[in-house]
């Protein structure tokens, strides 16, 4: 077993894991407070990458600006969506939210495919992050290292805000009992809207990070989101640290499977999901309700 290949796959695993973690984190936060399984998450991730592309093409704003602009733009679109459509579904079964957001994802992806085809548009990494380091046992591309570290930082910052701050205590409490939190004087409907905007913004941020690695493609989120849902099921909806650990962990597991048993690398996550469902239906970190 060449160590080169091992470390190469470990790195790819960490990269994939970074996207799994960021996306499942947003899904978890959204599900916790809105009770909605946000199936348009993959489309919103794709929109983030496209906003980065538009920023460059139309406004000459590069990668660093896109990291800021894309979450704001896509998050704002999410907020409009929540105010006009999602908020009508909160008192209904999860299934309605899932169907609506699934339909929206198809519509959004269809529009982008119509406009931009499905071959993918190139988007380069910023000059500061090109090149790489020769570590002796492997070559580490700077941009990939950046993606892993940056998304880890974003995930941990999100965890910190939710689990350790006053604002986070409102969010946790409202996830448990929104009626009572509102009766204490908190504007819970506004908090719900902003939370959705935040979760969607996180997906868009992941989209910008992905653009230089995978190109900008209307269907880039469609396949990814299926795996991310499996990650969420394994980790257990609603646990913040659970999403982060499971996301990175499964990315790595997937990477190693490519080295040791490549035939299973596309299915290993789903096999793990089936096993976890058998043993712990609420997920590894989920609280059984």
């Amino acid at each position, binding site marked *: 077993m060449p160590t080169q290949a091992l470390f190469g796959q470990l790195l790819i695993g960490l990269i994939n894991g970074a996207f799994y973690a960021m996306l499942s984190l947003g899904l978890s936060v959204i599900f916790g407070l809105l009770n909605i399984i946000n199936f348009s998450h993959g489309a919103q991730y794709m929109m983030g990458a496209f906003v980065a592309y538009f920023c460059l093409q139309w406004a000459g704003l590069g990668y660093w600006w896109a990291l800021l602009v894309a979450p704001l733009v896509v998050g704002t679109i999410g907020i409009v969506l929540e105010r006009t459509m999602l908020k009508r579904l909160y008192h209904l079964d999860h299934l309605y939210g899932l169907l609506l957001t699934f339909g929206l994802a198809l519509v959004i992806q269809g529009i982008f495919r119509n406009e931009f085809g499905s071959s993918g548009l190139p988007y380069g990494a910023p000059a500061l992050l090109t090149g790489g380091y020769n570590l002796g046992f492997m070559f580490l591309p700077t941009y990939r290292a950046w993606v892993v570290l940056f998304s880890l930082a974003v995930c941990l910052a999100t965890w910190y805000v939710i689990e350790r701050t006053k604002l986070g205590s409102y969010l946790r409490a409202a996830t448990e009992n929104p009626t009572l939190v509102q009766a*204490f004087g908190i504007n819970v409907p506004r908090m719900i809207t902003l939370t959705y905007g935040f979760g969607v913004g996180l997906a868009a941020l992941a989209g910008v990070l992905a653009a230089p690695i995978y190109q900008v493609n209307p269907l880039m989120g469609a396949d990814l989101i299926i795996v991310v849902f499996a990650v969420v099921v394994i980790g257990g909806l609603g646990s913040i640290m659970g999403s982060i650990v499971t996301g990175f962990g499964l990315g790595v597991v997937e990477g190693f499977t490519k080295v040791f048993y490549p035939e299973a690398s596309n299915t290993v996550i789903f096999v793990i999901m089936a096993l976890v469902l058998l043993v712990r239906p609420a997920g590894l970190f989920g609280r059984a309700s």
Partner: protein
Amino acid sequence: MPEPLLTVRGLNAWYGESHILHGVDFDVSPGEVVTLLGRNGAGKTTTLKAIMGIVRRRTGSVRFEAAELATLPSNAIARLGIAFCPEERGIFASLDVEENLLLPPVVKPGGLGVDAIFALFPNLRERRHSQGTKLSGGEQQMLAIGRILRTGARLLLLDEPTEGLAPVIVQQIGRTIERLKRDGFTILLVEQNFRFAATVADRHYIVEHGRVVDLIPNAALATSMDKLHEYLGV
């Protein structure tokens, strides 16, 4: 008689299609402790929730100081200086004791400080880093009352604070209510336990089938026992 602090007139309320309150009328003066007594399912909790705006579908008038509450959402009602302590206590499992205590935002000046609350309920100080729902039933009730004392709300709606608690804890809650009354809080108390209610309240309203059907001043309670037994079915 001073101007009432809270005036409820013709209050109707619904859960979905079920019509629960059918014209509730009563008032509470500043500094009073007033109870709502009644059988299971009479509509006492619903009355508190309709005042608080937690039951959204409601008609009639709920006046607090100069404000009309019947059309406001619950967060706006809380901001006017009313706080609600629910029957099921509503302690949050994902928050520790201190976070539970600090959760309700301060809406008016003049609330109790955290130290004053810990002085009232010393157990809470010792357990402030425990998960909220790991507390005993009595401690959870203290936490549920304690956390609304910080907010500066002057009208407290307490829903069966003594339910299911040991006699010593009931006494401690009784002393707390007396102390709050001395401090000038106004309290609307829902109770099943009229023996407890008699030790703390000025007046008692009887709720039956979604209406207030009688008013008994605390001084007249002893002579109204037969009537009361009939109302409460005890």
